[in-house]
């Protein structure tokens, strides 16, 4: 997982509320056996419409999704975060996130930044004036910069620390690698081993 500090890129507005994980990625994609390559599945039903924002040339290569309230509610599928990441999003801004989605985001290096609804609308207005414009999300100062605007966002300290350090769950555990190795050195020889095959 890459460390996150300042994300600068094209911001894509998604002016809908209550976007649940089934809309982010429909269940049929859960049959796949990979953990990457879900970019084609993101907002699968909506993107069939050529007018959908994802299909607008101004937003090609967008890195920051500016979403309506209650983004990522519904089923707990981790695939929702994978699809957003694979498509190229590094951050999602919303005034409210589904709990599990927000937890999953932090674990997979996707920054879920919570702003007030009024500030989200300010960003939408700014994008409306200049579609395809870049904005900046600074995790160090916890602010979003849009032109001259400086808007604060909230994120819990633990998740922020993990993102700044680039630590996924496994990375976190591996900080205790020395203790694991030490534990293994004390492991009794009667304990099970699958290899060599007997």
């Amino acid at each position, binding site marked *: *997982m890459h460390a996150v500090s300042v994300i600068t890129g094209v911001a894509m507005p998604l002016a809908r509320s209550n976007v649940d994980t089934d809309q982010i990625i429909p269940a049929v994609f859960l*049959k796949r*056996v*990979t*953990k*990457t390559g879900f970019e084609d599945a993101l907002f699968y039903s909506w993107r069939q419409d050529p007018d959908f924002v994802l299909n607008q040339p101004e937003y090609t290569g967008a890195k920051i999704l500016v979403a309506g309230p209650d983004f990522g509610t519904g089923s707990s599928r*981790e695939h929702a975060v994978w699809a957003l990441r694979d498509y190229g999003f590094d951050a999602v801004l919303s005034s409210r996130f589904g709990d599990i989605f927000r937890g999953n985001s932090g*674990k997979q290096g996707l920054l879920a930044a919570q702003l007030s609804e009024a500030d989200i609308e300010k960003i939408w207005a700014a994008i409306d004036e200049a579609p395809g414009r870049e904005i900046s999300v600074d995790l160090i100062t916890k602010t979003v910069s849009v032109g001259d605007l400086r808007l604060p966002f909230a994120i819990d300290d633990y998740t922020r620390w993990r993102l700044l350090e680039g630590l*996924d*769950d*496994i990375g*976190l*555990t*591996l900080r*205790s690698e020395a*203790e*694991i190795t030490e*534990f*293994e050195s004390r*492991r*009794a*020889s*009667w*304990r*099970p*081993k*699958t*290899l060599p*095959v*007997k």
Partner: protein
Amino acid sequence: MSEVRARTLAEKVWDDHVVVKGEDGTPDLLYIDLHLVHEVTSPQAFDGLRAAGRPVRRPDLTIATEDHNTPTLAINRPIADATSRLQIDTLRANAKEFGVRLHSLGDVEQGIVHVVGPQLGLTMPGVTVVCGDSHTSTHGAFGAMAFGIGTSEVEHVLATQTLPLKPFKTMAITVEGTLRPGVSAKDIILAVIAKIGTGGGQGYVLEYRGSAIRALSMDGRMTVCNMSIEAGARAGMVAPDETTFEYLKGRPHAPEGADWDDAIEYWKTLVTDDTAVFDAEVFLNADELEPFVTWGTNPGQGVSLSENVPDPSLIADPNDRANAERALEYMALTANTPMKEIAVDAVFMGSCTNSRIEDLRAFASIIKGQKKADNVRVMVVPGSARVRIEAEAEGIDKIVEEFGAEWRFAGCSMCLGMNPDQLAPGERCASTSNRNFEGRQGKGGRTHLVSPQVAAATAIRGTLSSPWDLQAELADAGATSKAV
């Protein structure tokens, strides 16, 4: 030295695996002794390792088998279903790439992951066992701490051989007394679930205790622990004893020589201390137990076979009542019908709950020399290729075939119908598996969970039946002939 705190079995096993103790509400980092892998929940875990450039930390503590998708007929032909084939092929490629031991379809050690671990002697007392599968609780029968995990955790264990976890609460399930003939381990656990409910064990590890549990064989204890998850628990355990040691001795991966002696010495300490306190306790009288059967669509909706389909209008709790009404509608049952008048279309003898050699023996001993009821399809699926071979050496395959039932290759099969073994819509099945959820055995299929003994009696009579009914018939026949 300060006095050692009195601890339960679960606490002892847990404590001996803590690598880093959690502080201020953070989880403990727990070491995992044995990681079982199958094709459904592992692909994305391996893919995650690949993406992060991480190896499997301990291939020598990891073992994989193919079970959920494998066909039970014509196992040497390519798998027809594309998703099934993809999952199996992916596991094969991953096992090769990461150096993980795999038992593929056709291999003598292939089978349901929870049958394979114990039969190889890999599952043993005092170890931690995980698998991306909820019925990992099965392995707790040996006094192991064994529980199911999700795909991200599978990746975590592959990479680190540890898991960050908060300790589970403990619940004692004490079963005293003696089971009557025809009543089995399956009836104990179905009765436990009916008693505490499908959520009753939530957050707990259950410890099964008491004389009725002590009297069970390892196969029986595995049946009980297997369905701990259906009571909502993360894990179930039985303290190891001579029955456990006897079962393990001489198995391929069981400790040998000095290791065996060391192990036994340690294993004998794995009992709940007399003064240890459980967070909750439940009691059950084995003397009173009868053959059990479910009538609804969750494993807690069960009654004794001699009872009737419950009447939802008599259920006080409005939620439970609505659930019961919905369940009866799905199951196409009418309140107050005697359970024994319910006719079935199929009997499934198999799954990680009841597909070990003793289960097959119990089933075979009842059907021997009999013919199955007309119009009932009977399928017998051993839990592993080894069990199948063992059963064939005892002639069980012949008994099954002469009875008119199908003798299949090993796998999960109709327990969940990921392979072609499925119920047709509306079909009713007496099944020795563990889940009677809507559509579990095939879209629209109706499942009654039963023991191998009840499955056998039902296959003979064509209606839900206990072995006692067969004896009654024999007794009746005897009485008639005397009268003549």
